[in-house]
């Protein structure tokens, strides 16, 4: 396991470095650099001033040099400022990351719990299999943002039970939870289907194993076979699905946040991109990507922990 960490952590760092370079180049190709924005805001600025400001801020340097200066700065802990919020970027990023992690964690727990339950049902009771399959297809085809809007229409507009979006200004945990219900439901519904399908497949595979037949022959009750004998073995392929799905789950959280106008990385990223806040957009992208890669690593490590055989092969 230590060897896996020693191998994967530098790999993650390299991925982030390449990603930051690619994103830096892409941002260089976006309209609206800070100087042209300043020029638009102030008609008294002439071409000479623009040249002077470009040189002053190093914007006349080649992109690659600018990326190097930026990247070494970030490594030293200098994250720079957010143009949009007029505050240090780190002060804007951390609360947003916290908001996203709350949404992600709750939705993941719910989706995994319900998805695994439904998948076991489909594997153990073949009658239910068609229904689980149909629901899985439906939830994979539904765009998450449409699902969110439908939930808003039902629970916020028609019934008026829950807020349509945003975040509470005050109030304790209960008030925060009220604002969390619809976003979590949206994200969980969008992902539990994939978990259900994969659980069903993994369980069906395990249930064919000879030692399950042996347990049955010994007279072990079905519930014990399902939970003690089958599920722990099905958990290994399930964890790899969770690891593979991490990117999609994070993407889903970002769009869900936008639908519900919920403060978090998703809203921050789109706001930053739309508002020409390039530094913040870049940092947000790297933070989201880094979190996703670390989550994938965690799922892989858990998989190794559950099945020590995996470590010996690789």
């Amino acid at each position: 396991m230590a060897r896996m960490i020693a191998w994967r952590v530098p790999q993650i760092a390299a991925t982030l470095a390449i990603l930051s370079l690619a994103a830096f180049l892409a941002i260089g190709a976006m309209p609206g650099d800070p100087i042209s924005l300043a020029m638009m805001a102030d008609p008294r600025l002439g071409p000479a001033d623009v040249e002077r400001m470009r040189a002053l801020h190093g914007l006349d340097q080649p992109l690659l040099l600018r990326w190097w200066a930026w990247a070494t700065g970030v490594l030293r802990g200098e994250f720079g400022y957010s143009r949009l919020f007029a505050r240090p970027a780190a002060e804007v990023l951390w609360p947003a990351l916290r908001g996203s992690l709350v949404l992600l964690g709750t939705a993941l727990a719910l989706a995994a719990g319900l998805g695994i339950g439904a998948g076991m049902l489909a594997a153990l009771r073949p009658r239910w299999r068609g229904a689980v399959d149909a629901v899985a297809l439906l939830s994979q085809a539904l765009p998450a943002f449409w699902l969110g809007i439908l939930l808003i229409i039902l629970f916020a507009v028609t019934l008026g039970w829950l807020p349509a979006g945003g975040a509470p200004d005050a109030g304790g945990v209960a008030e925060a939870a009220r604002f969390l219900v619809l976003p979590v439901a949206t994200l969980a519904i969008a992902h539990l289907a994939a978990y259900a399908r994969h659980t069903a497949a993994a369980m069906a595979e395990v249930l064919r194993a000879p030692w399950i037949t042996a347990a049955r022959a010994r007279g072990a009750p079905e519930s014990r076979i399902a939970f003690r004998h089958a599920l722990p073995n099905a958990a290994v392929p399930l964890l790899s699905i969770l690891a593979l799905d991490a990117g999609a789950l994070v993407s889903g959280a970002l769009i869900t946040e936008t639908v519900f106008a919920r403060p978090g990385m998703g809203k921050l990223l789109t706001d930053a991109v739309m508002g020409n806040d390039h530094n913040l957009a870049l940092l947000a992208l790297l933070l989201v990507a880094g979190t996703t890669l670390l989550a994938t690593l965690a799922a892989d490590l858990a998989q190794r922990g559950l099945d020590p055989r995996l470590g010996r092969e690789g």
Partner: protein
Amino acid sequence: MGGDAWRLRTGLAILLLLALAALAAPGVAALLGVDPEVPDILARQAGPSAAHPLGTDELGRDILVRLLVGARVSLAVGIAAALASTVIGLAAGLLAAWRGGWVDAALMRLADGLLALPALPLLVLLAAMDPAALGLPRGGALSDVLRIVLILALFGWVGVARLARAAAISVLARDHVRAARALGVGEARLLRRHVVPALGAPLAVAASLAVAGAILAESTLSFLGLGIQPPASSWGNMLANAQDLVFSAPMAALWPGLAIALAVAGAMLVADGLRPRSG
């Protein structure tokens, strides 16, 4: 478990229906005598009527015709992006399987890296780029479509490449291919005549999945305001408008979402139906 032919047929029927609807858009617009991009302030948010079978939106534009025009955008983006992804993915997968060694390792690490990253923030960033920097004309619906197709193909090739590589490796190891090589058949001819035709089935599955992914991604980007720009209509930007009016006209959000779900489900059913069953 059976029912595969049923899935394929249902999926194809759904896509065909949507394609017909997309083709019928100008005809329906002419029949109703409406222009989907011109506002009609006096007929805002009207209910269904003979002149507007699904009613009108917040600017008095006919919802049915906008939906049909949106179908053109969604299907065009879906098919074009899937085609581009398939071509790039096939080339990358073949190259990786055929050359092996460091070429294989480099391509697959790149694919792994792209798969592990969350796609949406990257798409958002790329979609905000100046189209002129990508060598595309600025402004207009066609420029938007090309831009989205290009961006989606940049990510879509990965799934195709992995499937193509796995299939190509197994084909390259088969006896008839090794025999052909031993007989002195050139490498290019070997790949063209013996390997690529054998990849048809997995490629068809990957391409249908790419269509589903591209339609979903386009609608997401348009929903965020980074895809197809108004006044041109797409299902995604219609939903974005509808969300702003969710308290006054909740029904407006129904149709575009239903259309997206239908198109994506259709493409996924086709992929499911084409997939060879092992168990």
